């Protein structure tokens, strides 16, 4: 009964959305903010990648918050999943090929991850993408050897310090009399690795934070007791 009515309502929703859709005028409104950023970002922020300029500069506050969300989700997830009882059964280690592959992949992934993070202000990519790769670098060995455990202490320390340093950089600007999260340290030459002021540092913090956060979450999930 409820399914039937749900389906009907969905049909209705579709029709309504179509109706609203028809009334919309696409592309007539100029993306005023976007254009302004496109024309001003090079001078104001100094990052060649304008998306990065937006992510860390114009909307750096959003980024801080999304980091917080990840952090919160990890904290809450940790609380939900709880501690694993030491006697619980574990999956056996994978075979030699997988283990060797994982060992081989680990440094490559770390390097790629760091590269993507550090070039975030120049090319597509950045802290989030790189952070995910970093996380997988640490997670792949765990998949290969379920018996090993990630050091929670290290993970939480990294994530705490990385997040704090993001805010700390923002606060530094404040103590300098500027607004919270104002980019620091000059802009440098557009397109150079050491440009865009404090943005790469921020991205590094983001990358580390995302990496440790995700790694921690994945480890939590994998460590939680099997259902069956």
């Amino acid at each position, binding site marked *: 009964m*409820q399914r039937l*009515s*749900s389906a009907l*309502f*969905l049909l*209705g*929703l579709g029709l*309504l*959305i179509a*109706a*609203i859709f028809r009334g919309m005028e696409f592309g007539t409104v100029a993306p005023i903010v976007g254009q302004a950023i496109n024309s001003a970002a090079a001078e104001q922020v100094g990052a060649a990648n304008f998306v990065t300029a937006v992510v860390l500069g114009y909307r750096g506050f959003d980024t801080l918050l999304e980091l917080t969300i990840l952090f919160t989700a990890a904290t809450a997830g940790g609380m939900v999943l709880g501690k694993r009882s030491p006697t619980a059964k574990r999956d056996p280690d994978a075979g030699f090929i997988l283990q060797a592959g994982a060992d081989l992949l680990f440094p490559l992934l770390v390097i790629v991850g760091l590269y993507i993070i550090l070039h975030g202000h120049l090319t597509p990519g950045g802290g989030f993408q790189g952070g995910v790769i970093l996380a997988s670098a640490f997670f792949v060995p765990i998949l290969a050897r379920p018996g090993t455990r990630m050091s929670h202490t290290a993970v939480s320390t990294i994530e705490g310090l990385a997040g704090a340093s993001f805010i700390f950089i923002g606060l530094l600007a404040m103590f300098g009399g500027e607004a919270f999260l104002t980019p620091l340290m000059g802009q440098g030459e557009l397109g150079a690795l050491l440009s865009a002021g404090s943005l790469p540092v921020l991205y590094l913090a983001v990358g580390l934070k995302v990496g440790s956060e995700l790694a921690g979450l994945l480890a939590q999930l994998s460590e939680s007791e099997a259902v069956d």
Partner: protein
Amino acid sequence: MTPLDQLLALSALTVVAVWLIGNRQVTGWNATILYAAQGVLLMMMSDLGYGEVQSIASSLTFKVLGHGLHWRFDGLSWFFALITIGAAFLASWFASGEWGQRYRAAGGSLRLFHVALALNVFSMLVLLASGDLLSLFIGWELVSWASFLIMALGSATATRYAMRYVTYAFAGAMAVLMALVMVYTRSGSFEFQDFRDAVPAMSSGSLWMIVILFVAGFGVKMALIPFHLWQAKAYAETPGPGAAFLGAISSRMGLFALVVVLVQLVGVERLADLQLVFPFFSARDLLSWLAVLTLIFATFTALRQHDARRLLAWHGIGQGGYMLLGVLIADDLGSAGGLMHVFNHATYQAVLFMTVTAVIHRTGTSDLNKLGGLVTRMPLSFVAMLIGIIGLAGLPPMNGFVSKWLLYRALIIDGSPLLFLGSVVGTLGTILSVYKLIHNTFLGQLRLEHVEVEEAPSSMIWPMMILSTIVFVTGYFPGLVLDWVASAQAAVGLPVLAHNLGGVPSHKGGLDMIWVVSVLLAGFGIGALVFFSGGRSKRVHQLDNYAGGHFLTAETRYQYSDNFYPGLMHLIGPWYRKSFRWLERGFVSTVDTLSQAMQGFYRVVHPSFYLLVAVVSALTWVVAR
């Protein structure tokens, strides 16, 4: 500090003082003294009561959210305040002696009791002093909750009915608030004067609504039909002196508020212009009939009670009908009758509750089927009750007769035979009922276990005697009270009753109680003369009587008490259909069903489903707009 400030401050102080003194025997005496002091302060304002001063304002004013709040006393307030403080004084006196000891010994807290009483007095004074609609509402709420407090001190039954009262009272208060807000939107302020000015411009539809809301709200306190279900048991089970106080004055606050709103502000003439579907049935008629139905219904319900306190409480509801009816007639006689009845009722209702409490104090029960013959043991209480019931029944020479006479006279002039008939039916029912009360309590066979019962203690007898005296004296010289009534009438803009000490001089049939009572007393004298001129009578034992040859002993209980009026009940018994209970139950069941449905709504399997529904319906509305 104006005198009113002093009075209110002292009243508030009484609450605090009583609280501080705590649960001790002396609390009651202190409270009594403080009430006496309040009475003295009130007397210092007696210019109000004799119409020499229009009003006395309090220097306390507030302005909240742009609405002014102020308080003042006029003749009407003074009149009601006099009754309030008097009732509190005597009730507190009554409670201070042995009753208090017993109450405390039984685990009751005298502190709570006296604080509740003092709080009631204070809140009533605040209500009576209200100088605008908002302060009226605030006072109203205070009174409601204060009386809830004192009711909740009683037995579990009382608490349950107090709960019911809260439900009704708060719903009523909401109705009042609604009416207030409607008035505000039409007159732009909560001031009395602005309301009065706005009334002529109001459409009859909205005025109807306002009147109905006010009546529903204030009617709850008066226990006007159909809001009466809570009162009798709640009052009856309240600790004795509390019941006397509540029975004397508490419900009358509803009358006060109605008088202020309907008579002083809307005006009875405007009510009479407000017509229902039929052109000959106006708002005034509707209210009058409500009053009369309340009177008849409550009186005949009282007739069926077999607990003295409940019987009295039901009568209290019924007598309220007289008062409202009188005020609604709104000529000089009728309104005087209605207002005077407030005073009269307070006096005899208090004395009756006190005698019943005294009986309970001595015998432990108020069940009319378990008492009888106490007149020989508690003669003074008997006298008090006799005077009380004559007052309640409205027979000469007591004061209850005067107010009823005024009412009847007004109804005759008004030409409303059915209302007249209704009120007489109420009186007759009352006579039947109060006779049953006194017969089953004080007359008839004395039960074996009551042979050793003593007269009530003096702390009880004194208030009872004072009240009885008032009942008689104000019946003998009704002009004493009519002075106050007249200034109350003047205060609310009613025609003022021309009166003298003995009553109402009129060429078209007046009343002079001094003469009537005198001839009555003389008649009794002659009767006594004739009687005692006969041979000496021999006093015999109670059981020495003619029982068709049957041998009676004290162990055999043959008091005729249960189902006292079988013939009448055989006929009208089926008319008691409890329809109001059904009404209430039906309402509760409806709410219950709806509530269940709503809970069902919140216990849905897919919470998101409603989100979808909401989006779809809202977007539909957006698109279809």
